[in-house]
Structures are given as structure tokens and as C-alpha cells.
């Protein structure tokens, strides 16, 4: 896995004086979807926050294409080519779709911004109709599209998506899934964090299972699909 774009080595994240993720080792290679699975409270989102620069990494390192981005500020992480979509569809609700995307391309040059916008809209043409609508008035699916589009505007090397499917109708999820595959096949390392394993395993190549802040399984998505008991043990056997 030496060609992995995103590499987390022994990453520990503390919140409220307690380690919520401890000694996380994982890597996401370019051109593939890698998934992190795990029950609620396993430390998945803390790991995403640590990559994004929102949570402090107290030990270990986060590297992107060999560059150490551990504990960089969020905007610097983004500048290093890592886009993180946090859980809960956190778009800018007071701003229109247009402004949401413009803000996301703020740090880019004029040409790159225009290209990025065109790219994002080619993935989500539906957004063009809602161009001037405020973020608050969008449906859940549309909000998820805006958030994904915001992440992709900067043409990242690494895309981290925390909970793609949570709270969305199956038909919407079905619409979004091909986008991730497409993005990955264009050479992006996609890290998909999901509580529900079904969709994630159908997309992913590499897979990790987190439980109580530790990696309980690391291997291939195929092995996990073939041996569901591996997954079940992580979800059920809490110590």
C-alpha cells in the first residue's frame, strides 16, 4: 500500500480528556474507495475531524501524498488537496447554492475556480436549477449534493465523506453513489465513512472496522462482505 495517497499512522484523538480514537492506522489509495465502518460512537467521525484539522491529533501523523498535514488548520488541509465532508450535511444554510459553491472555490485561482465549478456541476447538474435558492430551503438530497459539490470544486486528491447515506432516502443514495465511483475512478482517493455497511462495501476496495476508538479490522471490503460475522462482532460485542 505504498501508493496510498492518504495515510494515517497511529493517530490518536482526544476529546474531553478521553481518547475517542486511538492508534488508528489506515491508508486510502488513489483511484479506490476505501471505507471505514463501525457502530455509532466508534470514533469514525473523530477520525474524519482529525484528518480535516477540526480535531487535534494528540499522537501519530496524517500524511497526504507524503506531505505531513497533521494538525494543520482546516483551510491548509484543504489546500493540501484533502476535502472533507463532515457528517450532518453542514452546508452554509444562510447562503444560496451559488454562494455555497463560490465560497468553496474561494482559495482557488480564477481559472481553477471556473473549472472546479464546471466539474462540480457536471457531477450534479440538478444544482443549476436551484442556483439562487438558499441552503436552508433545499431538500436533504440537494443539501448532500451541495456539500459534495463543495468538496469537489477544488478537485481534491483525497475526498473524505462522513456518512453519505445517513438520513437520506434510498433513491437519493442511489443517485449519489455513482458519483463517488466516478470520482474515485478519476484518480481520487475516496474515504467513505459509514455506519451502515451495505452500500459502502459494495463500493469499496479496502475496508476498516472501527470499534471503541480502535481499528478492529483492516482488510478488503470483499473479505468483509464474504464474512459478515467479522462485521457483526464489531457491532455487537462491546467491551
Amino acid at each position, binding site marked *: 500500500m505504498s501508493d496510498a495517497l492518504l495515510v494515517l499512522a497511529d493517530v490518536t484523538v482526544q476529546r474531553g480528556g478521553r481518547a475517542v480514537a486511538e492508534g488508528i492506522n489506515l491508508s486510502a489509495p488513489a483511484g479506490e474507495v476505501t471505507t471505514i465502518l463501525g457502530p455509532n460512537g466508534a470514533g469514525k467521525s473523530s477520525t474524519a475531524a482529525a484528518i480535516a484539522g477540526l480535531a487535534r491529533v494528540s499522537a501519530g501523523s496524517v500524511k497526504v501524498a507524503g506531505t505531513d498535514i497533521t494538525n494543520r488548520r*482546516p*483551510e491548509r488541509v*484543504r489546500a493540501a488537496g484533502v476535502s472533507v465532508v*463532515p457528517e450532518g450535511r453542514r452546508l452554509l444554510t444562510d447562503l444560496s447554492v451559488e*454562494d455555497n459553491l*463560490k*465560497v468553496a472555490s474561494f482559495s482557488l485561482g480564477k481559472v481553477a475556480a471556473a473549472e472546479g465549478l464546471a466539474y462540480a456541476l457536471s457531477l450534479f447538474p440538478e444544482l443549476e436549477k436551484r442556483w439562487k435558492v438558499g441552503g436552508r430551503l433545499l431538500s436533504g438530497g440537494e443539501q448532500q449534493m451541495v456539500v459534495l459539490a463543495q468538496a469537489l470544486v477544488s478537485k481534491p486528491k483525497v475526498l473524505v465523506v462522513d456518512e453519505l447515506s445517513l438520513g437520506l432516502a434510498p433513491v437519493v443514495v442511489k443517485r449519489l453513489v455513482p458519483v463517488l465511483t466516478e470520482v474515485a475512478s478519476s484518480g481520487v482517493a475516496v474515504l467513505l465513512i459509514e455506519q451502515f455497511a451495505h452500500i459502502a462495501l459494495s463500493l469499496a476496495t479496502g475496508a476498516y472496522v472501527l470499534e471503541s476508538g480502535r481499528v478492529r479490522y483492516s482488510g478488503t471490503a470483499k473479505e468483509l462482505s464474504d464474512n459478515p460475522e467479522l462485521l457483526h462482532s464489531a457491532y455487537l460485542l462491546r467491551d
Partner: protein
Amino acid sequence: MGILLYPGLVLNCALITLAYGWFLAPKLDRRDPLAKSLGMVAVALFLMGIMKDRWDTSKPRNLHFPSRTFTVADTVVSTTQILALAFALVVVVGVNLFLQRTSIGTAMRAIANNRETSALLGVPVRRIEAMAWFGAGILCGCVFLLLPSFVKSLDQGTLTWFVIPALGGAIVGRFRSLWITFFASIVIGVIESFLTPFSGALQFLSDFRRVTPVVISVLAILWISRRRTVVLAGREMS
């Protein structure tokens, strides 16, 4: 001195707010709006202490903007008054345009909406915030070139506490609408002026005219919150 005095004063004001925005504000950037405003209280106290020492109130000072007066329908109007009103309008229109049309303005709105998300999207939050501080300093500096013309004797207390009627306007505008803030401030000012000449039995109206912004903003809060039962602490600004 001379020609450089006015821009110098404005820049001085802006540098102070920029210094706060650059060095101190980031230290509180993850706190709620309340803690941030207490940070401003700290700076205000700090500056007031310095002014108290540097500013000998026994020697009244003044700063009169070059002005001419003329009469319109029995009312004496000065060019400074007209300039002040025009300046306020220009600021409202200009700031609105800036916030809506420019990328920096959009980034400012994004930060006001959600600071963390904006940072995730690659907005250089600290730099943009420092710019906002600088801009606010420039506006304040300009205001305090015009304001002294309407004040009899200048002292640091009087000038500092112009923030109270200003807050009145801002509360009515809910820190969101510049236009509402503008009109509310005009209304507050007009009511105060109308109360000023009362005397005799109604002398108290004149005496208590300075309470106007408080009354107006309390009424505004009652009106704004008439249906709301719960306000999530610290979330009102989001």
C-alpha cells in the same frame, strides 16, 4: 498634520481594530459570541484606561470637520449633517454590495453563517476576519471624523458611549439587516432630537431622552421574540 490628519486618524483607528483582529480575536475564535464580546469589553477597558491618562478633560478639545451651513425651510442645515447622512447611506449600500457581490464579502457571510464549515471549505478564516476588523476600524474612524462636529465638548467617555445608541440600532436590525439598522438608528436619533426641546412639566422627556435607544431596542426584542420560546444559547448570531 494638515492634509494627512484625517486619513491618519482613520488609519490609526483601523490599525487598532486590525491589531485586535489579528492578535487577540483568534485566541477566542472558538468561543461563543458572548465570550468574544467580552474580549471586546477587555479591549475597551484597556483603551479607556489609556485615554483617561492621556486625555486631560480640563482642556476641552474639539475636532470640527470643515463645514458650511445653509437654510432649508426655516431649518439650519450644515454640510456636515448632509455628509453624515450621505455617508451612512453610502456605507449601507456599499457594504451590502460588498457582502453580496465580492468573493471576500461572500466569504465573510460564510464565516458569519458557520465558521468551521467555512474553514473546511478552504476559506482563510483568520485573514478574512482580520479584514473585517480592519474594515470596521475604517468605518469607525470615518464616523469619528464626522461625529465630533455634533458634540459640544469631546471627552473619552462621551465618545466611547456612542456605542450604546449604535447598539440600539444594531439590535433592532438583529445584527443582520443593515437597512433596518440604518432606519432604526435614524428613528432613534430623530426621537431623541424631538424630545430635546421639552421643558416645564414635560422637562423629564428632555432629561430622559438618552434612554430612547434602550426603550426602542427593548421593544424590538419583545417584538422579535414574541413567538419564540427557546433560544439556543449563543446560536442567535449564526
